[in-house]
């Protein structure tokens, strides 16, 4: 099971903060694609060019590999401080 989190404007656009996906393994880019297939309404927000990803709470690249038990987060550029 992969735990997927969404933050800030992305969470607001998707209307959900968390989704759990069984049986996924692949890259961050592939996970984004898979979520778009599962939830076509999510596609525009999920595919936005500035969306970033973290895997197990570390910033991740599109090619970062994800497997069972991982925590993945998608979010817009950060604006703290």
């Amino acid at each position, binding site marked *: 099971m992969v735990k997927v*989190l969404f*933050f*800030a*404007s992305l969470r*607001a656009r998707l209307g959900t903060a968390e989704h759990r996906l069984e049986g996924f393994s692949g890259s961050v880019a592939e996970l984004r694609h898979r979520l778009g297939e599962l939830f076509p309404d999510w596609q525009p927000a999920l595919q936005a060019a*500035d969306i970033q990803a*973290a895997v197990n*709470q*570390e*910033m991740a690249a599109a090619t970062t590999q994800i497997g069972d038990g991982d925590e993945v*987060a998608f*979010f*817009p*550029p*950060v*604006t*703290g*401080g």
Partner: protein
Amino acid sequence: MDFIEVRTAPFAVADEFAALRAGNRSDGASAMFVGSVRDFNAGAGVSGLALEHYPGMTEKSLQRIVDDARARWELGRVRLLHRVGAMAVEEDIVFVGVTSPHRQAAFAACQYIMDRLKTEAPFWKLESGEAGDSWVAARDSDRRELEKWA
């Protein structure tokens, strides 16, 4: 010698400065930065904001930034506090305080921590204002500031 905290409660600069200095006889320099809620962003009136973060990742991210600052400069104490939750205009959001035997190191590390925090610590701001609620957009200028540390 690091104090890093994500919190909802306001902080007091007096307490943070006291913690940087108490019994600190070797660091003559203390540089501090405070970021506060402004009443406008990109021109629109703002009445307050809600700060969201990614619990767990936030703390790791802040600790890494402080570790990297320590690797670059000779630092004494570092205190980094960032609030989350609801805040009104004029409230303080973030405090960074750094002590060092050297003035330049204290200034540089304080600025470096803020520059990196702005571009990589997972915080997001939702502003409330005249035109309703809106998510604050990241600024290219914040990304460019990082180049001076490359």
